[in-house]
């Protein structure tokens, strides 16, 4: 697992534990996950595990990778986790996108109908068109993530000598700003379109119903005092500017 000397320890370890497992993330802290991985693999085959990135020799097995993601690869999980952590950080207002499970949310979305552009018109011929004609990319959201994340790491390595995940927060913010402004070429994908897609999905994962694995603990809704799926709100209509306090309810909760 990559360690970044520029990162505060807490941030790096949080990233580490999230990569360690999508489904169980909230229940455990970083140390627990790392300890669990060590005890579950190491005692039985003390010499069989090869270091990350090295091809295994006969008799060895590869390192156990992050578990629980359907679509995203390990480096994509690392990059997306780092991005989401800058886009909606944890702070005194409450949990950020990472704590709210946005990475898992996006993984599920990309592996499903949304990632496949299942409801978009995707027949050619393709042309760039005018801005008023809207989205004209021949790529699905899943393809845009795949191409965009690879190209972004290549760009970061070329410019900074480090992958995005290994940059400090200020440098990461600077790269995000360049992406947002469309100033980085991502193998032919507009970085502004790439950024908007990621940003849209991060916001969705932060504020959609927890039934989609994001918005854990209804953290996004609690930030806003949004009542969720409480259907009977008639009494709130009569209020005169004061807040209507009600515990949020989610689908299935």
């Amino acid at each position, binding site marked *: 697992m990559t360690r970044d000397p520029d990162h505060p320890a807490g941030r790096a370890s949080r990233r580490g534990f999230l990569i360690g497992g999508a489904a169980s993330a909230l229940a455990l802290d970083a140390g627990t996950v790392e300890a669990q991985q060590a005890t579950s693999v190491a005692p039985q085959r003390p010499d069989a595990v090869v270091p990350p990135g090295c091809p295994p020799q006969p008799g060895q097995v590869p390192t156990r990778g992050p578990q629980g993601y359907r679509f995203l690869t390990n480096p994509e999980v690392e990059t997306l986790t780092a991005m989401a952590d800058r886009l909606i*950080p944890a702070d005194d207002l409450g949990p950020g996108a990472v704590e709210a499970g946005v990475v898992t949310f996006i993984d599920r979305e990309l592996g499903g109908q949304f990632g496949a552009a299942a409801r*978009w018109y995707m027949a050619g011929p393709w042309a760039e068109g005018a801005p008023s004609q809207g989205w004209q990319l021949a790529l699905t959201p899943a393809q845009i993530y795949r191409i965009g994340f690879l190209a972004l790491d290549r760009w970061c390595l070329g410019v900074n000598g480090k992958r995005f995940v290994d940059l400090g927060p200020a440098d990461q913010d600077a790269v995000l700003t360049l992406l947002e402004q469309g100033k980085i070429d991502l193998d032919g994908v507009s970085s502004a379109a790439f950024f908007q897609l990621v940003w849209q999905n991060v916001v969705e994962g932060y*504020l959609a*119903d927890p039934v989609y694995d994001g918005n854990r603990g209804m953290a996004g*809704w609690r930030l806003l005092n949004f009542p969720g799926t409480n259907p009977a709100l008639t009494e709130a209509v009569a209020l005169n500017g004061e*807040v209507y306090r009600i515990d949020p309810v989610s689908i299935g909760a």
Partner: protein
Amino acid sequence: MPRHMPHVDVVIVGMGWTGAIAARELADTGLRIVGLERGPYRDTIPNFAVPNTMDELRWSVRGEMFQNLSRETVTFRNHLKQTALPMRRLGAFLPGEGLGGAGVHWNGQHWRFLPTDFQMRSHNEARYGKKAIDPELTIQDWGVTYDELEPYYDKFEYVCGTSGQAGNLKGAIREGGNPFEGPRSREYPCPPLKQSYGPRQFAETARGMGYKPFPQPASNMSQDSYTNPDGVQMGPCTYCGFCERFGCYNWSKASPFNTVLPIALKNPNFELRCDSHVTRVELTPDRKSARGVTYVDAAGQALFQPADLVLLCAFQFHNVRLMLASGIGPGYDPRTAKGTVGKNFTYQTIAYTYPFFANKRMNGYAGAGAMGMTLDEFNGDNFDHGPHGFIGGGYILAQTTGARPIQQSTLPDGSPSWGSGWKRALHDWYDRSFTIQAHGGSTAHRANYIDLDPTYRDAFGVPLARITFDFPQNDLKMRQFLVDKSVEIAKAMRPDHLKVSLPPVPFSIVPYQTTHIVGGAIMGVDRNTSAVTTHLQSWDVPNVFVHGASAFPQNAGYNPTNTLAALSYRSIEAIKSKYLQNPGTLI
């Protein structure tokens, strides 16, 4: 060769509002009727039950109940010199798909048009002179009057349990209602909805400025219960804030499910076939009569449904596309301004103003699709346009349809677009504003029309409809006028911030504006300038009737549903009282 189905008397294409109304109204004729719906079967229960209907991501963001564009879409361009490209993702408008059509995810904003709206050309020429109207505008009179439509407006309001307050009862102006509306024969069936804090404050401020705000007419049930004239019941609106873009869980928002479909489906002579996508109306070789329709079922099989009478009740551009693809009537050519089918595609001209109040919660999540307080001073010809250089207008509406966090979190201009600053702004400003919408009409322009795309096709091989549209200068002037008025009132509320949001010019297919796309199969009294008669009957193929907003010669400054329903009721009544006895062109 498609398999032939048994012959029926009537085939209805599309089972949204107009198709369901037609099926309901024809139920007592004894005619054998088949209704073909391209989307799936669905009903309030189980498809729109709580809590799953209150799912912003699924329904509103991913658009699960809207038209599936992977099978068919439209192509779009701003002007003739551009190459039209497909609308690949939903944006500016949201057509429905499935039983009930867009009547399931509408808001319930239940307006009548103004009497003068129906004489858009003759009235404006008479008042302002021919020179006051841009020669490029192809606005027309409708061929029907408000008074002729009034009984059908009234009927649909009672079918839907519409809530509101009459402003003009048989000619007597009534306090608290819309003083500009045409005379109505009786009160609304239900009293107005409750109003939330923001719109109440807006109305008070506007009243202080001399305006006459009134509650927006709403087909969201304001009473504990309501039973319509057919005996169908509605439940009370609980202000859940999941109305537009969602199916109503409580039978509170009028939709085909809780109004006309239950009656239609009880008719043993009516057969509903969902997942049945009509690709063509089949004509006799002389193109003067329809033999029936070809459609593709869920399994992909092509079938031919013979019928004596074909009612096209699909969404606006589907009606137009079916006419063009089937050879019903002459296609419109913008270069010569000849031809009728596809002519006068119009939209709606929208702008938003948001006043923000740092220390007030609007509780906007306690919303309903059609709750809100409206001003009609600047709609239609309710004011003297003399000094302004445009015709038409729109209403100004303060509303809270919900405060759904992904799509309805409006932040002040200058807020950071992401990061901790964005999070702080979201925390500080969420639910601190409400929407003041300027909802303007749309004048027809010679160059705005629909034809068949030369390149792109749907999943069944039929050319897509090609929309060519941009906002006429007349409408942009009108929009600015409405925005100025909106801002004036918003400023008088002394907000901490004020944000104005104008959809892009040229018109863009990207940001949602409204689903009120109209025209293309317009009605009128002259077969050289309209595609259908005032009874919605094709001039060229008299056993085809074309229902819906495709019949509007141009759009008024109101939401279209009540008017398109009224036109359907009037058409079906004429079919029953005249056409069935003596099939032929009804004048």
